[in-house]
């Protein structure tokens, strides 16, 4: 019918893409971002906001189940794309969008509530309720609330003392493995009271890291990428986008004359900002440098920026006692080198598109 086609054409003119980039697949990730720029698409923050799920191979370990979970949560119309190293990223993603365009709603809808169906199977071994992309509600399987059955069969959060002497609900939440501006594949189990992190432990890392030489050959672009992530977490979209533009320019035409002035402008705006100063000063202090000092060094053309060697346990220990926003900033300002955690795996097929 004509109206459905018109609606479908408009609806797919701006596809929201949820990108799950396995650690190390930088070239493919940048190709997806480039496609989004060219197509007018955006990267989605949560599966409920996404139409296309783009996964770079190999998403194994905890990422495999995470990807299934995300796929289940995405509303129709949806499309999934698995991108290997040598693939033509643009072509595959365009095909996915064409799939979206041809989708028509079914009446009655045949996609059942997978959570209800899955729950019947999981009843025996203690529920694993996941109602969020990358933030899981782990139910206390062994805890008996004395017969109070909460709606949906979920357990109520346990209560614990907090730092002000109150007794508040303590909710166990898993940060990761898929979260924006977060090292993909890393899972940090935190216990939140309100939005304060009371405990934080890191799960053993079981995702294989791909060998990729994009960042080692372009250290300035790597620094800008990290800075852009931190700025995006601070909510400063304009400056984060500018940093990403300069990063892309560094990778495509490194001799462009506008790179230096633009980086300087970004650095100056960040240095002068009072909000950034109050948000990052004294945060994530490691080896004498705090988050603000590291961010400024990333945005300068210093060839040896501040990069303290910190183990994951140290990074996660800095999160305790902070609120969720600060905990995310801690992880973004001390990006861990995931390749040291898991055996490296090299992808055949050369560089991605």
């Amino acid at each position, binding site marked *: 019918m004509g109206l459905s086609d018109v609606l479908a054409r408009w609806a797919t003119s701006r596809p929201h893409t949820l990108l799950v980039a396995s650690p190390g697949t930088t070239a493919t990730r940048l190709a997806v971002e480039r496609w989004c720029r060219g197509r007018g698409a955006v990267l989605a923050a949560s599966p409920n*906001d996404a139409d296309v799920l783009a996964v770079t191979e190999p998403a194994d370990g905890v990422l495999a189940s995470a990807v299934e979970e995300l796929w289940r949560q995405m509303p129709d119309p949806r499309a999934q794309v698995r991108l290997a190293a040598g693939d033509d990223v643009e072509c595959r993603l365009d095909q996915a969008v064409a799939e979206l365009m041809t989708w028509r709603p079914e009446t009655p809808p045949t996609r059942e509530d997978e959570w209800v169906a899955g729950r019947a199977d999981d009843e025996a071994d203690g529920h694993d309720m996941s109602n969020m992309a990358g933030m899981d509600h782990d139910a206390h399987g062994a805890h008996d609330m004395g017969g109070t059955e909460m709606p949906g069969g979920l357990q109520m959060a346990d209560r614990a003392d907090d730092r002000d002497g109150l007794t508040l609900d303590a909710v166990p939440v898993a940060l990761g493995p898929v979260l924006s501006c977060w090292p993909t594949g890393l899972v940090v189990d935190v216990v939140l009271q309100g939005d304060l992190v009371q405990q934080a432990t890191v799960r053993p890392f079981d995702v294989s890291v791909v060998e990729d030489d994009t960042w080692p050959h372009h250290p300035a672009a790597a620094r800008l990428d990290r800075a852009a992530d931190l700025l995006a977490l601070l909510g400063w979209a304009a400056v984060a986008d500018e940093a990403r533009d300069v990063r892309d320019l560094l990778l495509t035409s490194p001799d462009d004359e506008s790179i230096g002035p633009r980086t300087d402008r970004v650095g100056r705006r960040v240095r002068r900002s009072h909000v950034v100063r109050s948000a990052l000063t004294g945060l994530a202090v490691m080896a004498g440098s705090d988050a603000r000092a590291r961010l400024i060094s990333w945005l300068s053309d210093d060839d040896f920026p501040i990069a303290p060697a910190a183990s994951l346990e140290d990074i996660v220990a800095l999160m305790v006692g902070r609120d969720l926003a600060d905990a995310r900033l801690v992880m973004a300002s001390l990006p861990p080198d995931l390749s040291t955690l898991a055996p490296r795996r090299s992808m055949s097929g050369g560089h991605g598109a």
Partner: protein
Amino acid sequence: MTIATWPVWAVIPLAVVLCLAAGLAAVLDAAVAPTRGSQPSTPVAETARLLRQTRRTTPAPDALLWRIGTAGPLVTALLMAVVIPLGDHVPARMEIGLVWFNALDVLLWAFWWMAGWGPNSILALVGGYRFLAQALAYELPLMFALTAPAAAASSLDVSVIVGAQSELWYVVQMPVAFVVFLGCLLGFTLWGPFAAPLAADIAGGVGTEPTGIDRLLLLAGRYALLVVGSAMAVALFLGGGAGPWLPAWLWSVVKTLAVLVPLLAIRTRVPLLRADRYMAVAWTVVIPAVLLQVLVVSIVAVAGGNGGS
């Protein structure tokens, strides 16, 4: 200027006009605050996309409160618009129109909180907590900023306040109240520096879980609130529809756009403010400043009244 009321049935076309105005605000937003991949036709594409999207839910949500929360902002905007004059006509002339506006923005506390608590999702809940913290910071300054034009005009009727600005616009007489009103408008629409409840670091916060039509209502409600808040700022501080040559309703529209476009442009250009950082500033700097403003306005009003009579 005398302000007349429209007939009762006029609220229906006016509601349509407000929704279209919200769409226009979204188009202007894409034009003045571009992010990667946004263009002026973006709102049409996003609306089409959300109309096509199926609704998803979470395990054991509080469905009633969640639906109320996501539809709340748009309904609040429609109700607020009822007392705001467009040119020299107003949908409903209430003697306590200003209190009506204030009561509705207090209702927004409930709606944004319910949108965060309803889906039974930790990230949405954290968004709700963040909203409550920032609401504690902006609500009192907003109430005192609304008192200033009422004190100057000796009336709570928005139409009378517009009429009382025939000689001098209130923005000249009470600039602090104007600026504080605009800041609090950003606060209750979760816009610009006050968008922490919808931030990317909590995967969209209050906006993580709604899909399809719920999401459309929530996002459209935000734009509608911005439009209505700008129109209120025009009525309270910028003289409503007063101006030479053009008809009064066109002046209202032009002035509303003049307030709306800079507010839209702020969105990407400042980082997010966190409530725990600025709470002290809100209570120790902003509230005394607004109270001083109200004091000055009251003294001027009393002295003017004594001098005139």
